[in-house]
């Protein structure tokens, strides 16, 4: 018994020691882990931690771990874990002994049941995790994807990766000083984006979600990891400038497709509404743009990126040009939002002026290199020739030949003369020969010592010249080598093949076919004082190039023209102004209804600086105002007839207004020296446009309903008259044929043909001058400068109304204001000749004062005359076209966020991607608010946070007292 007791005691003590060691090990393990956690940058994933741990222990065993603190912590962890394992092993052995003992049979049975319960517990939880179900109990099912989207997503094949990239903590780049609303909006929008992304990820393994934060310490590694096999994504992430979501998929061939959207495309902040919400107390107001937009990106993942072509005459003006002239910022902004950008150079300098070409940027550069190489070869040839000449002179002078000595001496004297004058001297070769002859005659008269001195000077001079020529040869040779190297970088065969095509129209047409949108930037007036102007002639396209653009527009694709003012430069010394040069592109735009005058818009703030009386500063540089009034997107334009337009604004203007509201102030987009842009439609507003089509389809036919006299009259004023065919269609607008107040006019009801007899009578009553004046007056209603043919065409077909001029607002005015998306402020006026001259004062005469539209975008009907005899002609052909009256708008290495927004909105609209433009469709999100008076709020808080607990304290105390009484 004693032995048994002693044995038990020994076992118990050993058991205690093991337990003590085990607990100590556990404690040490905790301390060691805590130390290790702070001593090393651990990966966020278990796999990562495992790999790191293995590496660290390898280093520890090999003695390569330098960090002493980390080494100690790992030793503590190892020791602790060892003791813990020992304890567990001993306890397991003891447990097994108990279980398989006599009393242990019952326990074993219990243990078995518990083990089954554990398995059941784990199994049930594992099972539900394999197919997790979520039920959305919200009123508006905000955590449920619409059924139609789900059905489409289910059909997707392969895996789509959604990368949520948070670059900034704040919401919008538009705001230079983010405030609380921006910060709160950023957090809320991020939350909403995450919720939506999570909804997609719940669709199953076909969606893989990755988060990237620019401020994450592990960002670079993660970025490399994600983009290792998809360089397209890396490029897109590098270019992006705001918080964005990327959608990535790869086809079977491994090609990556990337689509992206900015956070603000998904939800936009309305700071103006936020500040005024809840009766001015404020609330966060967001404008959700819908889940469909997000889903569309996923569903159209493999859609080709829209390609934007930049049409310029000079390499300098391309997206690779210098920051003063190039469009690098435009390119980065577009590419950062999933566009492709290509430059097309349309002119090549030649001795006779600009030669029309159609080059890609690579071709243009290749061509420039070739030309440069030709020049360098010529220079090197000249140097070689000169060197041979000087070598011959040098040798002969050394040999003591008088002819060489004489010529060398003359050249030496000329060189000294050039040095004295500080430049090269142009000397008639005949006079040089005469001078050489004179020197040659004088040489024999020199004494021996004088001759020796002259010989020495001449030989030294010729030697120096030879050395100089050698240096020049080396320098130009090096340049030549460099150009050859540069040339070798191009695919010469492909470029040679491209250059083989000499038909400019055909080649340009082929290039345009690959574009979905073209931009024509024409920077003209950069500064008036000092005068820095690129003549508009430098931008002119050739007729056949414009013809190719016309063909491009006929296919319904978009055009953005950024056209600076074309005001004539003042003539020098009273010379007559140069004649107008043809401007085929602007003529084409005029055919489409755009009204581009030669005027330049100036601001009141510039009046003093542009005045001829302006006093210049000490350096002789006139001081111009640094800050110009910004363009206006927010105010409804005032139509020429007065009043306010209440129609829906243009989508671009609407989006820009939302952008302005997102920062609750103007966008501060300044514009200097723009030109006014007008628009007069060529046909009725109705979508079908059957009337104008009918009219235009009759191109080339005589009007059989009009007598020859009238016909001749109208033709004499340059009008192309064609008969209407069919019904008028859905003509809904009316423009008076007579611009003079009180003159009779005829009306055309919707769907009816005009009263030709009455129309004839009206036309017959007037002389050519009257008609022209009428039309000119009328043209003012639809935009000054509208071609008579276009106006009359419209008028003849159906835009003839009962209104008398001045009695009612012509409907065209409404249209004009609808299509204008950007205006100058009222403090502006337009000038035919904006260039300041001494004694000239400019202040904006009455009738020429702003605001003026400087940005117009319209879906313009394509004149059917453009189609000629083509068959079949498309139904209601139209193209989206925008004109911005400024050529430098998008020039520079970096676009401001507001300009970038305008560019993207304009491009998206021109590409008919209205769905990706931010809209305000009345759907707003804001925090729920409970309207309570101050007193009510206090009472609710006090009653429920203090009163209710006290009530239970009171009840408890009372019941305890009652119990005591019992």
């Amino acid at each position, binding site marked *: 018994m004693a032995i048994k007791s002693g044995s038990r005691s020994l076992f118990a003590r050993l058991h205690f020691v093991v337990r003590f060691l085990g607990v100590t090990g556990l404690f040490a393990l905790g301390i060691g882990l805590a130390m290790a956690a702070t001593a090393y940058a651990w990966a966020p994933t278990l796999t990562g931690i495992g790999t790191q741990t293995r590496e660290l222990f390898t280093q520890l065993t090999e003695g390569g771990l330098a960090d002493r603190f980390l080494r100690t912590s790992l030793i503590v962890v190892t020791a602790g874990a060892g003791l813990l394992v020992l304890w567990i092993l001993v306890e397991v052995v003891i447990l097994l002994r108990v279980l398989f003992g006599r009393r242990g049979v019952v326990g074993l049975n219990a243990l078995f049941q518990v083990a089954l319960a554990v398995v059941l517990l784990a199994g049930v939880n594992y099972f539900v995790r394999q197919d997790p179900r979520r039920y959305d109990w919200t009123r508006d099912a905000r955590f449920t994807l619409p059924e139609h989207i789900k059905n489409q997503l289910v059909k997707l094949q392969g895996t789509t990766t959604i990368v949520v990239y948070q670059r900034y903590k704040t919401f919008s780049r538009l705001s230079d000083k983010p405030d609380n609303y921006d910060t709160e909006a950023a957090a809320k929008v991020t939350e909403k984006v995450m919720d939506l992304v999570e909804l997609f990820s719940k669709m199953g393994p076909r969606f893989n979600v990755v988060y990237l934060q620019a401020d994450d310490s592990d960002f670079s590694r993660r970025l490399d990891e994600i983009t290792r096999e998809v360089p397209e994504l890396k490029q897109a992430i590098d270019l992006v400038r705001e918080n964005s979501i990327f959608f990535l998929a790869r086809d079977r061939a491994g090609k990556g497709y990337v689509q992206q959207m900015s956070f603000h495309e998904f939800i936009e902040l309305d700071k103006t509404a936020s500040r005024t919400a809840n009766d001015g107390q404020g609330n966060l107001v967001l404008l959700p743009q819908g889940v469909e937009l997000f889903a569309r990106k996923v569903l159209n993942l493999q859609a080709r990126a829209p390609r934007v072509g930049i049409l310029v005459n000079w390499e300098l003006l391309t997206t690779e040009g210098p920051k003063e002239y190039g469009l690098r910022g435009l390119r980065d902004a577009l590419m950062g939002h999933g566009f492709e950008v290509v430059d097309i150079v349309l002119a090549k300098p030649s001795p006779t002026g600009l030669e029309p070409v159609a080059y890609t940027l690579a071709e243009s550069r290749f061509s420039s290199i070739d030309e440069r190489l030709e020049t360098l070869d010529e220079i090197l040839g000249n140097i070689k020739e000169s060197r041979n000449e000087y070598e011959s002179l040098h040798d002969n002078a050394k040999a003591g030949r008088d002819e060489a000595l004489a010529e060398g001496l003359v050249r030496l004297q000329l060189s000294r003369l050039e040095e004295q004058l500080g430049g090269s001297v142009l000397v008639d070769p005949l006079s040089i020969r005469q001078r050489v002859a004179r020197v040659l005659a004088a040489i024999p008269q020199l004494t021996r010592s004088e001759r020796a001195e002259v010989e020495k000077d001449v030989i030294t001079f010729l030697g120096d010249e030879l050395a100089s020529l050698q240096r020049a040869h080396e320098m130009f040779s090096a340049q030549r080598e460099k150009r050859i190297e540069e040339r070798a970088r191009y695919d010469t065969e492909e470029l040679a093949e491209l250059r083989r095509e000499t038909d400019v129209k055909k080649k340009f047409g082929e290039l345009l076919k690959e574009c979905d949108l073209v931009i024509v930037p024409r920077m003209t007036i950069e500064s008036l004082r000092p005068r820095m102007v690129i003549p508009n002639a430098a931008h002119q396209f050739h007729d056949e190039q414009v013809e190719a653009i016309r063909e491009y527009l006929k296919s319904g694709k978009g055009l953005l023209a950024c056209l600076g003012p074309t005001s004539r430069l003042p003539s020098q010394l009273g010379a007559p102004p140069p004649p107008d040069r043809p401007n085929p592109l602007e003529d084409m735009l005029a055919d489409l209804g755009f009204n581009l005058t030669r005027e330049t818009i100036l601001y009141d703030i510039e009046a003093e600086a542009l005045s001829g009386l302006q006093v210049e500063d000490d350096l002789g540089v006139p001081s111009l105002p640094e800050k110009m009034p910004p363009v206006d997107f927010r105010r409804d334009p005032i139509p020429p007839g007065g009043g306010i337009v209440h129609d829906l604004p243009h989508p671009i203007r609407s989006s820009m207004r939302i952008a302005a509201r997102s920062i609750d102030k103007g966008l501060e987009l300044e514009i200097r020296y723009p030109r006014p842009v007008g628009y007069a439609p060529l046909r009725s507003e109705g979508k079908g446009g059957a009337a104008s089509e009918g009219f235009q389809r009759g191109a080339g036919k005589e009007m059989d309903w009009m007598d020859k006299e009238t016909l001749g009259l109208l033709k004499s004023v340059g009008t192309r008259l064609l008969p209407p065919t069919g019904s008028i269609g859905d003509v809904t607008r009316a423009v008076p044929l007579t611009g003079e107040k009180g003159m009779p006019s005829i009306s055309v009801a919707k769907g009816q043909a005009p009263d030709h007899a009455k129309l004839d009578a009206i036309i017959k009553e007037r002389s050519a001058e009257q008609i022209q004046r009428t039309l000119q007056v009328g043209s003012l209603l639809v935009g000054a400068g509208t071609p008579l043919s276009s106006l009359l065409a419209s008028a003849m077909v159906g835009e003839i109304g009962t209104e008398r001029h001045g009695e009612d607002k012509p409907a065209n005015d409404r249209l004009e204001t609808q299509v204008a998306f950007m205006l100058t402020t009222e403090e502006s006026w337009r000038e035919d000749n904006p260039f300041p001259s001494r004694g000239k004062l400019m202040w904006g005469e009455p009738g020429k004062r702003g605001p003026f539209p400087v940005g117009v975008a319209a879906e313009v009907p394509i004149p059917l005359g453009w189609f000629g005899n083509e068959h079949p002609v498309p139904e209601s052909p139209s193209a989206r076209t925008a004109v911005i009256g400024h050529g430098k708008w998008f020039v520079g290495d970096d676009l401001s966020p507001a300009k970038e927004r305008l560019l993207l909105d304009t491009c998206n609209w021109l590409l008919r991607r209205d769905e990706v433009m931010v809209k305000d469709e009345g759907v707003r999100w804001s925090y729920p*608010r409970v309207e309570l008076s101050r007193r009510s709020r206090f009472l609710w808080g006090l009653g429920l946070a203090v009163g209710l607990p006290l009530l239970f304290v009171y009840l408890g105390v009372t019941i305890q007292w009652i119990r005591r009484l019992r």
Partner: protein
Amino acid sequence: MNLPHTPQEWALFAAVVAAGLMVLLVVYYLAGGLFQARSLFRRELGAYFYSPIAYVIMATFLVLTGVCFVRTLNLLTASGHVGVEYPMQAMFGQWWFWLVFLLLPPALTMRAFAEESTMGTLEMLLTSPLKEWQIVVTKYFACFTFYLLMWCPTLLYLPILLDMQDPQFQMVVTPWTILLGAGLLSVVVALFMGWLHLNPTGRIVSLVLLVGGTVAAILGARLHALRDAEKVFTVSMGIDHGPVLSTYLGLILVGAMFLGLGLLVSSLVRSQLVAVLISAALALVFVLGGVLVLALDASPGTVASTGDIYQVLSTFSVPLHFSHDFTRGVVDVRHLVLYVSVAAFCVYLTVHSLESRRWR
């Protein structure tokens, strides 16, 4: 009705039916056991109200929820950029709420077995005609009932949390309103009969009235809401009520889980204080995840939130379940299954714990 077509669908259908029948059987069995142990249930529940601890717990709990309520009230009536989209998230989506809350269920369960062990009444209880599982389930349901009652005062927050306005009552007589009224009347009569201490027959009648009345009231209310054009009671709610319902569902089930844990620990130790501390420590496993997530800076949508550690923590993290799902109106079955399964497992282990006293 869509009938199964494929053999797999039929197999699944059969499995669901079998599981449903089994659940019904278990419920029936449990209900029978509970009915047999109704005296114990009454004693356990009554003990809460007679002891000061229940009022302390109640007051503490209401202070805690009150603080959350005031915070939410301030956000709901705020001006400027601040606000709260989901009021229940501001109430119960905070990790600190759960750190305090996790002490309350153990406080409710600590006395269940530990006190009986200390006082020596457990042996007496075990020798009663009741089986171990009946004792455990009855004690558990008593705790759970008190837990549910504890939440009842928080319904007073709802007029604010739902922005209830313009409540209107009107007399509407339809078959469904009659059913609703009859159900409510039955419940009132049943409660009155229960107060009278009737004989067993009377008690059975009162129980039938109580259960039948409750079912009738719920059915009538539901059908009235769905089918009647005019409503007996209308109130406009400016804030979505879905998140409130889902939050209360989550709170009920998470309470069930914590109570199960507490009951198990209470059956294992003799000291009530130790029972509270160990229960809280175990409950911490389900709360600590939320705190660690903060430490990892791995709130949903961050880089860290995609890591394995976060995934593991979020599986068990009750604060995350609430801040991300329940309080926003999302009911995730995974969370429900976790809470219910852990609660059932703990109750099962508690039964084994009591049984093991016989053979240890």
